[in-house]
């Protein structure tokens, strides 16, 4: 009998050794939102971009804090005002064994903005740039005007292969035949709504990840995602619902990872209409739009108890905001702090502005877009009512909300007076929110496209435009910070908090959180 037991033990240890030698490390991850395609140029959408990072490298990579680092390009620098020179990495091979060189870059930038049926393409980042191949490993990017954000723009474009990718259709990418990149993972299988499977690229030029096989499973329903993790069906999940965080924290088998994102939640106020549709006098009569008065805007900002929103509504999973991006990002101001909660001061300021009795206001917001969005709107409504601004709260699905908030009025202007919105800085630096939210609405120049309050200040505009022309990083950083300070001083918008994202993994695994909210298996580490 004893012999038999020993034999078993030996057999078991041999098996264990065998498994160890093959180092097959499989991980399954439950995703809160699903990519809509494998084609990296099909849809400029967070989940799609996150997935494509696995298969396709960029010329310039963004790290977990969205700082730029060399990817397929080893260096990039302006050689004159209008030309950036990119030196490419040599010796990199695509998954099918072909070499990477300048031809792949040229054809990628041709295809990226021109994918048929693309819901939202990459033309935003490629336009205004002309590529020129100098030799196999040198490419020049030319622009009509000095363009300091070249690196940020280029870091958003996944490089595909000249031989199979550039001529490929979206269907061929989804089937895998064209999904050939240089990235750390190779495409294996894609079942829409069900799973995406990837396998490690053993010949990867960079640091090789520890997971050899990866399965992503979209599980959109929050409670189900948590249950799948608890049941052990998945090893990690993204987008942990705030209501479940406390329970998971108490669970010894689960490890939470949290990190601030590049997304600020803020309020836009109607600053372009004398008669704003959702502002009324204290007794419901028509009045001149008080939001035009900077003191009133300031009073609203002071009336908002940001710490209470973070503590109570967000259950501690958020950071009070005093500007457009959290600390540590390029172009943030070191001077700005969240506006302190001061209801008495707010009342005094309202009286000074000529509204001792307050007025009536409606706050509009989405109820399925940001973490706890409807609850935040309700909390803000109550806080404002407390200082005399009788605030009604109206929330709606994002599918209805964003259209109305952007161009819902009969004249095609923003419909609401006071709205709750969020902004994620995709480029990872302050020019993104400044350009879209603060700069005056200017259709021809493409500025202020999401400026739904239509705040307009020529001085700030000039500052932003100067920053966008300034190639020197230090100078640009200072200009962006100054523009931010002026915008906050003007109360162009009222930032409330920065979103914090939560991932949960089984014990022994940890996720290195990313500010761009991406879930990348390369960031899952063992402890």
């Amino acid at each position, binding site marked *: 009998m004893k012999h038999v037991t020993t034999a078993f033990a030996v057999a078991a240890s041999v098996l264990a050794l065998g498994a160890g030698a093959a180092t097959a490390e499989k991980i399954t991850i439950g995703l809160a939102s699903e990519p*809509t395609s494998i084609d990296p140029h*099909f849809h400029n959408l967070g989940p799609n971009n996150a997935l494509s990072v696995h298969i396709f490298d960029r010329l310039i990579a963004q790290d977990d804090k969205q700082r730029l680092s060399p990817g397929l390009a080893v260096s990039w620098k302006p050689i004159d005002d209008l030309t950036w020179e990119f030196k490419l990495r040599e010796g990199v091979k695509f998954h099918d064994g072909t070499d990477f060189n300048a031809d792949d870059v040229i054809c990628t930038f041709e295809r990226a903005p021109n994918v048929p049926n693309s819901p939202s393409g990459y033309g*935003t980042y490629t336009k205004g740039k002309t590529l020129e191949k100098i030799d196999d490993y040198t490419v020049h990017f030319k622009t009509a005007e000095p363009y300091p954000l070249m690196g940020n723009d280029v870091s958003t474009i996944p490089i595909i292969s000249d031989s199979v990718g550039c001529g490929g259709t979206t269907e061929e990418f989804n089937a895998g035949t064209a999904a050939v990149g240089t990235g750390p993972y190779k495409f294996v299988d894609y079942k829409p709504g069900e799973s995406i499977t990837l396998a490690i690229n053993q010949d990867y030029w960079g640091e090789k990840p520890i997971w050899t096989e990866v399965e992503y499973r979209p*599980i959109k329903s929050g409670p189900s995602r948590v*249950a799948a993790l608890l*049941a052990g069906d998945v090893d990690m999940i993204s987008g942990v619902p705030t209501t479940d965080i406390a329970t998971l924290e108490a669970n010894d088998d689960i490890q939470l990872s949290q990190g601030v994102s590049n997304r600020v939640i803020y309020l836009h106020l109607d600053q372009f209409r004398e008669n704003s549709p959702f502002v009324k006098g204290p007794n419901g009569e028509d009045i001149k739009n008080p939001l035009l008065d900077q003191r009133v805007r300031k009073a609203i900002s002071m009336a908002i108890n940001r710490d209470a929103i973070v503590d109570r509504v967000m259950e501690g999973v958020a950071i009070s905001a005093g500007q457009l991006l959290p600390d540590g990002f390029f172009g943030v101001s070191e001077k700005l702090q969240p506006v302190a909660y001061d209801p008495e001061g707010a009342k005094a300021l309202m009286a000074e502005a000529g509204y001792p009795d307050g007025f009536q206001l409606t706050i509009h917001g989405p109820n399925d877009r940001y973490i706890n969005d409807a609850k935040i709107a309700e909390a803000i409504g109550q806080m404002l009512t407390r200082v005399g601004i009788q605030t009604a709260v109206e929330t709606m699905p994002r*599918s209805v909300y*964003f259209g109305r908030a952007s161009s819902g009025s009969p004249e095609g202007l923003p419909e609401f007076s006071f709205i709750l919105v969020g902004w994620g800085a995709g*480029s990872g630096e302050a020019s993104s929110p400044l350009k*879209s939210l603060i700069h005056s609405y200017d259709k021809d120049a493409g500025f202020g496209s999401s400026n739904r309050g239509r705040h307009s200040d020529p001085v700030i505009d000039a500052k932003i435009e100067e920053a966008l022309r300034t190639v020197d990083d230090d100078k640009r950083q200072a200009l962006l910070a100054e523009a931010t300070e002026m915008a906050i001083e003007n109360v162009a918008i009222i930032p409330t908090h920065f979103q914090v994202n939560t991932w949960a993994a089984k014990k022994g695994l940890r996720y290195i959180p990313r500010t761009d909210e991406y879930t990348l298996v390369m960031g899952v580490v063992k402890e």
Partner: protein
Amino acid sequence: MTVFAIRRMLQALIVVFLMSVIVFFGVNVIGDPVYMLVSPDADQADIEAAIQRLGLDRPILEQYWLFLKGAAQGDLGNSFIFGEPALRLILHHMPATMELALTSLFLSILLGIPLGLYAGLYPESRVSKTIMASSILGFSLPTFWVGLMLIMIFAVQLGWLPSTGRGDTAVVLGIETSLATWDGLSHVFLPALNLALTNISLTIRLTRAGVREAMSQDYVKFARAKGLSIRRIIFVHVMKNILIPVVTVLGLEFGSLIAFSVVTESIFAWPGMGKLLIDAILQLDRPVVVAYLMIIVLFFVLINLVVDILYSILDPRVRLQDQGS
């Protein structure tokens, strides 16, 4: 019967057309899909380009005309989100939903009829009372809650079954189905049970009521007096009579199972049509919503036709003809 079927199909076409009008104009007044699609980084020119590409800048009547022209050629438009033909997208998700609905229907019959029969034959017994009480629960508990409870109990606590997803599939008769693999079956069981709960309860109640009524009727007494075995009376004579309402209701419910298993599919992350529909609605993927509802109308018409044909088999007195035509 052929004439009957053809006439039914013609009626179906009219219904589908009317449906297309209602749905097309209905979804076109809700929201603005452009803002659901374009990246926030896009500037005004990008947004306008997107509006043009999707054809949303055209007058609504022209959009509808283009849609009708496409539909006549079997093209129900391209999904805004996936860029693929909406019809193909729906057909691609159909097998997953069908296997869920069929398994659920199977469970309804397998559990509902025997339990209902027992409750009808022995209405006073304690077991029957328990069955009836549970059937009320089956009706009244919300699906999403029961679904989560099933996951918590069978997947999280006991660890017997997987929590979500579809599992391995195999190709049988050219159709990829998870019903052909053990792993697939283990995945389908919980969502199918969740989906079936209401129908099991419904079947129990219908069967019980039918049995109680039939047992006191003359033909049963006569059969008894004639000396037929109780088995034969129940399984041949009584069954035949009570099955008609059961078949009608289950037929209609089967349509709902296929069309609107939205909640169950969302909770169990089941990659079926219901999940496709709810995602399409949330993201304003109009072509998919319209195509989906039109296909569902066709489905309901077909199922009703099958139910009518089943009637005539179960009850020879029923003749297949339209009234007043």
